[in-house]
């Protein structure tokens, strides 16, 4: 078990370094850091001097090492667009994105999984068919369109909920939160639904198909032959066996939420990291793009590691011991 975790951690570091390399190449070769720092009238000599001073003439591996070392300390250089430190810009906007993604994830999990279980257990019931049809519409509607429709209905027509911004926030240290005011919470509703809906349908469809698959397994038939109650079979034996793939996908989707927040934040003018990233793409603000890339990479790696650890909690086959024979499914 320890060896497995160790290997996973090493793999994660490798992935992070790969992402770092892409970010570094972006930072160093796509954008020219010098151009961003100096004016039009700077002479070649001055540029060269600056280049030397910034270490841009060092061998590439050394520059890469420096880049990573700086990034580890949260230092991503200055934004081309605003000349502010990129690290601080991201940190300021992080709480908005994290709170939004958190609410969307809760929404997706607590609605999507029960719906998936239900449709998996009773695939022929008409409510299941209806839910399945709705879910297909759900994954066919692009996120931004869902957002626009929600705004049109609940903000423009009904005036029930705000359509843009975070409403009222409370500052706790460097973290700004929506959770402590009514206006802040109201402002969270539409964006969270918009962001979570796609993942909700995805989760529901996944749980459903896993459930259908598991219900066909021999050990379910054998459990029936042993005369166990439906309750014990459905929620004890079947649901637990669907957990492993569901955890995997939920983990991946959690990361995807943060990336998809780009779209939702644009629709709802939500001042988060995603909006910052879009602006950086539009204005070719390379340092921000590089930093965002690294950040997302880090998040994915952390989530994947957590998912791996959860496997151990669920599946005894991974815990080893005894004969530890593979197979069995």
């Amino acid at each position, binding site marked *: 078990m320890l060896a497995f975790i160790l290997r996973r951690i090493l793999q994660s570091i490798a992935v992070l370094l790969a992402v770092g390399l892409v970010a570094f190449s972006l930072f160093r070769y796509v954008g020219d850091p010098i151009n961003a720092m100096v004016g039009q009238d700077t002479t070649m000599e001055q540029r060269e001097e600056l280049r030397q001073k910034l270490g841009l003439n060092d061998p590439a591996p050394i520059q890469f090492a420096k880049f990573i070392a700086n990034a580890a300390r949260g230092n991503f250089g200055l934004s081309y667009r605003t000349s502010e430190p990129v690290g601080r810009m991201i940190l300021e906007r992080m709480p908005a994105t994290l709170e939004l993604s958190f609410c969307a994830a809760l929404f997706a999990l607590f609605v999507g999984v029960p719906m998936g279980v239900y449709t998996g257990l009773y695939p022929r019931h008409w409510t299941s068919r209806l839910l399945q049809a709705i879910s*297909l519409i759900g994954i*066919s509607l*692009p996120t*931004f369109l869902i957002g626009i429709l929600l705004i049109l209905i609940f903000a423009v027509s009904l005036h029930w909920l705000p359509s843009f911004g975070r409403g009222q926030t409370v500052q706790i240290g460097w973290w700004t939160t929506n959770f402590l005011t009514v206006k802040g919470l109201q402002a969270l509703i539409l964006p969270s639904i918009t962001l979570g809906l796609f993942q909700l349908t995805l989760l529901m469809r996944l749980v459903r198909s896993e459930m259908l698959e598991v219900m066909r397994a021999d050990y379910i038939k054998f459990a029936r032959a042993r005369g166990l109650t439906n309750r014990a079979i459905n929620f004890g034996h079947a649901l637990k066996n669907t957990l492993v793939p569901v955890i995997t996908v939920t983990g991946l989707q959690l990361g995807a939420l943060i*990336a998809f927040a780009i779209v939702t934040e*644009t629709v709802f003018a939500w001042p988060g990291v995603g909006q910052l990233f*879009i602006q950086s*793409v539009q204005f*070719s603000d390379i340092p921000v793009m590089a930093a965002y890339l690294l950040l997302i990479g880090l998040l994915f790696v952390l989530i994947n590691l957590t998912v791996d650890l959860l496997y151990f909690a669920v599946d005894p086959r991974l815990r080893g011991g005894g004969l530890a024979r593979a197979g069995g499914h």
Partner: protein
Amino acid sequence: MAGWLHRFTDSDIWWSFKSSPMTVAATVVTFLIIAISFLSPILAPHTPFDPATLSLSDGLKPPVLISSDGDWTFPLGTDDQGRDILSSIMYGTRLSLVVGFASVVVAMFIGITLGLVSGYFGGTIDAVIMRIADVQLTFPAILVALLIDGIVRTVISVKRHDEIALFVIVGAIGLSFWVQYARTVRGSVMVEKNKEYVQAARVIGLPPVLIMVRHVLPNVTGPVLVIATINLGLAIITEATLSFLGVGLPSTEPSLGTLIRLGNEVLQSGDWWITVFPGVTLAALVLAVNLLGDWLRDALNPKLR
């Protein structure tokens, strides 16, 4: 010919197709949308992106069903520039479809090639390609496409970017969807590689690559077709999203996503039709394609039914 047709109409696939009214409807809708949009130069009542035909006095007309004058010149109303929404949608759909199909072809080409290479040569090449695939798979396609677009924007000028925007978008989306094809093809190659006919081909001096391509590709047609159909829906959504975010196609050449973005800018004033009609078209198109993809997956993979 007749025998072939009979075998087809007698097959399980045809039977499963016939017995699913949703799938038949989805096929009809898909082909209708494709036909109408590609005939838009003939069918469209206006040429919305020819500035000479536009008049600002036609601006922001509501759709005919809720307008007071009952004038059928602009059945779905106009936007703030006086462009006919219906015609815009027809041209926009064509563009969305072109981008969708083209990027699926690009993704398919890259994916199949890399899958063949990876599976056939194995070793380091395989390891490198598959690690890249792993890493890319952890990043959502939209993010990859955004990054590629952002890089291209940095390298070339804004004006030049608008000119080649279509190719940039197709390339960006294509590059973000190749992984699934590569994995499928690679898996199939690994199975076929050690079969006797490939060894035999080697013995009689035929290039084994040729033999493999000829035998592997038919094997993966089914799965690749399923992936392609599902990806077509995703590609159309991705393009629309990029255009909506303002980093896709320029507004001089609007796709459905661009139209929705333009409408969204005036949404607060209640002129809903500029956004809603392109939105509904997009949703209908993607839904129909997804229904087809869903059915195809079930029909070609009965285990999951």
